[in-house]
């Protein structure tokens, strides 16, 4: 029963049940797209770094 309440922990704060699957997939997507965004921002610096090392 305790575990059930663990699952519903966010629901206790928010009236909407975010759904465990939705929380986990959004974290995965967010990590992926945030990584992509980071590389995009730093792309010129990365290119510069590798061209220096050539």
């Amino acid at each position: 029963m305790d575990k059930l309440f663990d699952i519903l922990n966010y629901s206790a704060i928010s009236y909407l049940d975010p759904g465990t699957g939705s929380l986990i997939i959004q974290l995965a997507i967010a990590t992926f797209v945030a990584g992509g965004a980071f590389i995009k921002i730093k792309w010129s610096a990365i290119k510069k770094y590798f061209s220096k090392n050539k």
Partner: protein
Amino acid sequence: MIDLDKGSFRDPSGFVFYKDGQIYRQVNESYKDNYELLMSSGLYDELIKEGLLIPHTEVDSKSSCSNECYKLIKPEMVNFISYPYEWCFSQIKDAALATVRIQKLALARGMSLKDSSAYNIQFVNGKPTMIDTLSFEKYEEGKPWVAYGQFCRHFYAPLVLMAYKDIRLNQLLRCYIDGIPLDLASSMLPGSTKFNFSIMANIHLHAKTQANYSDKAVDVKKYTMSKMQLSALIDSLESAVNKLKLDKVNTEWGDYYNATNYSDDAFNHKKQLVESFLQTAGSRYIWDLGANTGVFSRLASDKGIETIAFDIDPIAVEKNYLHCKQNQEKSILPILMDLTNPSPSLGWSNEERMSFKGRKLPDTVLALALIHHLAISNNLPFSKIAKFFSEICSSLIIEFVPKGDSQVNKLLATREDIFDQYHQEGFEKEFSKYYTIQQREKIQGSDRTLYLLKRK
């Protein structure tokens, strides 16, 4: 007398009610901090400035109907409430983009949307506008977006299905009041969508993850995400929605005005008559039933008359909406509706979402080139059609299209003519039971007649 809104009960932060014909929203004590943050953070002002949130004024709370009341607010009234299963593709898309924009502005001010229901959006002055003032909560660092799943079900899945499978699939929202289940969306989409990162992630993988974790006990609190990750997620959703486009589809009505048998003279004369009848009727709020792309609706809306333009064809509604958007029209709202099976009342106790006839009814209805579709294509007797109109409007501007007209001939070309009663005398006889004929004019260059009827 206080009348509680039937669709406002899920969120314990407050509720909507009506008193003396005015709308009010009670803000509960439990929502006090979030409400104050919304108002003091500058978010409210910013959203109002961008036309993304319905404006409200705070009023004396003594007339409130509950002792949990912290504040009573009076939002601007929206005359015609519409639902996502009545919107065309671009309306759903714009509503989705408005929701994402609101979430971005909220995050920048230290708040977050606690739900992303499509039913929180209404088209006000032509623009998608959030009507639920209590949808914001203080952003807590590390907390994922609780409304992400709802956003995918209410907006992304319908849009992807409409764009990649069939434009009519927004009708699934009628069956699933909390949005299209993602496993259903995933199973209906073409396999090629698995090569599209956004659709793969937000629909297919999302559905699989939901299924995997549906019966597993997981401590979700350990799953946290930084604000940067959350912002990247919101940006990616915005970009995913922005990329969705509708393929050009030719449907029955999309090309109606080009394919019709009207001469320019007849078309212009009909326009003049409609304008004159509208003026005689003194219309202030009209429904144009069978509006197509809204050519005749605009005779009213261009004069500032609030006009709801209904049509059964999703492409016609799409074209109408894009025209409104391009010209920043404020008085016309295109709506997708099958008059032979109009929106029913839906949701809990059949009360959450209003039926077609349950909305604020117009003073005038325009029914141009519609009667033959109802009577011949749908076998509806004049008696039933007349009764239906008499229940929704006091003034009716209706066009009678007789047998012999090429459009009627087209409808009869593939079926037996069982419509002995379909003639002008029969039409007048049945409509005269409910209405007085105020004006009757032949449309020049055609066999059609335009009527202005006044309810008895």
